[in-house]
């Protein structure tokens, strides 16, 4: 201590003597020694406690997963909450808690947890996907689409390509379910560009194209699937269906025929094949027919339409109470009756105008009957599909 230092003098009454200073040194040294001991104790305690916390967290997480698996969502929620109490920043635990809450229909709470995760990892693919699913479940279409897109471009552990592809599929399903075909088509085109050589995946994409009524892309994908596996039944059936929808009935018959031969149990394909065969057997506008054959088909179509109209008129009269006939059906019946004397193959073969007029009438009858008397079947369905194809509508 400097005796000339005025500040030291101020503290003169407290200034320690040499012996006290030595004591102080000893106490300071002892206190440092005490610190070292306390550091060791705290270190060991902290390490043991963190290990215990980790093991408890894992234990509760495992219980939660088991409970969630057997459908005990409420119990799983408690388990995951307990797990989180021991590792509050564990994203996996929180994600599973959100899944359990979703499973228990506690969507608002699930959303809070997912948003919590999202705030910390906005680019996480899994979190975005779950948020998208939740938004979809809550009917928030715009949010769902946004989160789906985030998930597609998000970070995925393991196999990111596969995960992103799955999200795209899910997004397409969602968009198609909400009638957003154009948006779905865009995703599908994107999806189709980097598909691996897997017939099933091509079929899946093609099915979605088909659902989005993008027939050309759908057919292309079915064909790609058939290139990989030419005995792929779904690809054959799908290609047949696409060809059917585009009015290419010959091609449709080819694919459907192969499908049914491959799997006679495929009722859908068999039914479509039957309709296709009927269409091909009655289509009066088919190219390459002789005049006689064309006239013969028109006569058959006329008879079928007349029968359908008569049945429909009776049904309508029943519905209307049996007093007044349906005016539209009545007018059509009159026109059908007017043409009846001319319905001979020879007459029709010589008069293309009459043939066209009759064909138009047949199609009109089938359209009106379908509208007023319910769905057609058999030959009537074939004629109706032809009518629609001719009218520019989708068959």
């Amino acid at each position: 201590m400097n005796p000339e230092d005025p500040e030291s003098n101020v503290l003169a009454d407290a200034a320690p003597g040499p012996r006290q200073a030595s004591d102080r040194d000893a106490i300071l040294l002892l206190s440092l020694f005490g610190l070292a001991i306390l550091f060791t104790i705290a270190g060991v305690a902290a390490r043991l406690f963190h290990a215990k916390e980790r093991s408890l967290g894992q234990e509760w997480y495992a219980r939660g997963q088991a409970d969630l698996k057997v459908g005990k969502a409420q119990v799983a929620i408690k388990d995951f909450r307990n797990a989180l109490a021991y590792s509050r920043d564990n994203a996996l635990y929180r994600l599973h808690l959100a899944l359990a809450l979703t499973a228990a229909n506690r969507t608002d709470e699930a959303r809070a947890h997912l948003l919590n995760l999202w705030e910390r990892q906005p680019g996480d693919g899994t979190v975005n996907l779950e948020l998208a699913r939740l938004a979809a479940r809550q009917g928030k279409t715009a949010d769902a689409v946004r989160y789906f897109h985030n998930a597609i471009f998000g970070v995925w552990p393991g196999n990111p390509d596969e995960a992103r592809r799955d999200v795209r599929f899910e997004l397409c399903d969602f968009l198609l379910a909400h009638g957003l075909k154009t948006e779905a088509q865009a995703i599908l085109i994107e999806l189709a560009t980097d598909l691996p050589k897997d017939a099933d995946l091509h079929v899946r994409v093609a099915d979605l194209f088909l659902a989005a009524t993008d027939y050309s892309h759908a057919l292309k994908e079915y064909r790609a699937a058939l290139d990989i596996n030419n005995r792929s039944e779904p690809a054959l059936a799908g290609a047949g269906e696409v060809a059917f929808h585009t009015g290419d009935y010959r091609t449709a018959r080819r694919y459907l025929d192969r499908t049914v031969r491959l799997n006679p149990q495929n009722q859908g394909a068999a039914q479509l094949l039957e309709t296709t065969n009927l269409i091909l057997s009655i289509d009066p506008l088919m190219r390459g027919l002789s005049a006689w054959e064309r006239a013969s088909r028109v006569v058959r179509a006329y008879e079928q339409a007349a029968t359908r109209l008569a049945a429909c008129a009776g049904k309508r009269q029943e519905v209307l109470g049996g007093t007044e006939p349906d005016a539209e059906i009545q007018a059509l019946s009159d026109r059908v009756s007017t043409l009846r004397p001319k319905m001979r193959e020879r007459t029709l073969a010589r008069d293309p105008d009459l043939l066209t007029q009759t064909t138009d009438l047949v199609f009109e009858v089938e359209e009106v009957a379908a509208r007023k008397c319910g769905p057609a079947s058999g030959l009537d369905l074939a004629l109706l599909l032809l009518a629609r194809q001719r009218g520019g509508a989708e068959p």
Partner: protein
Amino acid sequence: MSTAPAASPPPAPSGTPPLSMKDRLRSLRGAWTSGRMHLPLREDHLFLLLAVIIGLYAGLAVVCFRIAIDWARLHFLGSTLAPSWPRVVLVPGVVGLVVAFLVIHFFPRVRGSGVNQTKAAMYIYDGYIPFNTVIGKFITCVLAIGSGQSLGPEDPALQMGAGMASALGRRLRLAREKLRLIAPVGAAAGLAAAFNAPISAVLFVIEEVIGKWSAGVLGAIVLAAVSSVVVERGFLGEEPLFRVPPYHLVHPAELLAYAALGVVGGFASILFVKLVVWARAHLKRLPRWTQYLQPAAAGLLIGVVGIWFPQVMGAGYLFIDQALHDQFTWQMLALLGAFKILSTSLSFTSGTPGGMFAPTLFIGAMVGGAVGGIEHHFFPWLTGSVGAYALVGMGVFFAGFLRAPFTSVFMILEVSGNYSIIVPVMVSNTIAYLLSRRFQATPLFDVLSRQDGMDLPSMEEQREETTLRVEDAMRPYAGPFLRDEDRVVDALRRAEDSAVDFLLLPGANGVWRGFRKEALQKLAQEGQADMLLGIAVTENTLPWVHPDQPLEVALREIGDWPLLPVVHRADLRKLEGVLSLANILEAYRVASPPRS
């Protein structure tokens, strides 16, 4: 400071046998002594070094304390958040009996608020806190909080820090002044580690324990707080106590919603204070033997609440975090807030050792979240997330209940790390604080200390004390205004026309001189009547004061002078008035309320 140098042993020549352990120790001591000779440690430096050591001790103690509480909870209530009802009901009650026994027979000083006990150490016991209190606080709080009593670890941590600091200070035989200040230094360190928030801890200790800003002690407090937080984070992780979601003000009009939160939070805090004060006063009046049962009874009742609302048991940090992340409905938040008020009142007033900080934050978060939830229900376009209201609610309750307005604002800033929340926090906290002051005149800590028979200085009252200023006591100068250029004879004539005996003469550079009439008469008789005053009067330079200065300054300056000139700050020759000792005393007399 010096120590006698110990003779260092000569270095061992090569080829000689290796040094024994005793020689090595002696050599080490010699090196230490030699080093200390070159590094003399002054009292101030020692104080700062001590602050760091205290911070490290407090940080380590808090680490052990928090781990011990969690271990105790695991063992008492199990690893689930919702323990089975027999455990929930029985454990707090049974452990309450043990705690009561320990408190009554071994650690009687661990009852009550650690803040008040630290203040008592500082203002009454010259910084003395028995080390037994530290041990007692550790054990009893671990048992109480671990068994589910609705109390927090911050207040005990504060007291443990203060106790350790006091013990170390005593062993080092610090001067009395330093010993008094060492307890708050330890308190700040303990609180900082418990809160993981050094700024709030420093502010709280200054706002509530010391009551004034002093550069000397501030440095030590900051060092201790930072050291303890570094240690605590080193062992328990860098994560803040609460993870606060991003916040933004949805619309300027949302401040009205926060103002409403301030009103609700303010009234809720008043209710809480009144409940605690009323229940504590009544329970203290019960026969002494009931003190064995009070913590157990409180524990039993809390256990009953805990069957349906296990969240109210213990400190409840996890659930505060959940409230901040919108994980409760507003109805649930309101119920949790109400039951926590009840549970904490039961625990605290029963004499169970433990702190009120965590419960305060818990209740604030729940009440804030509930208010936010209701507002969001009715005005969804105007209000932000419920979590933001829960966060602001914590500050509101802190301001209203603990009456620490500065700490309440900075604590939220520190916890959230988000500057943009400052405006809502200030609005809400101010409203809650003002309401609390309006309907609860005496702050909680002061009421508690008075219930314990102590009259500790109230920091709020100190803050509110009006300072008497010079302008409150000064009078107009009635004497003649003399100048250096006046002749002595003229000055004497003017002085004789005046009733004033002591005359003032302003000089150059703001020098004021004062003299009596007799001095002028003497000059005239000595034949210096025509001499200029500036030349004739050169002595008796007066101190002067300004009107805005505290009256204490004038009291110190006036000495034996009959008058002090009060001069303008911008023109030191301009006289604003004068001040006599009688004026000063009169001003103090008028300002002092009569004591009942």
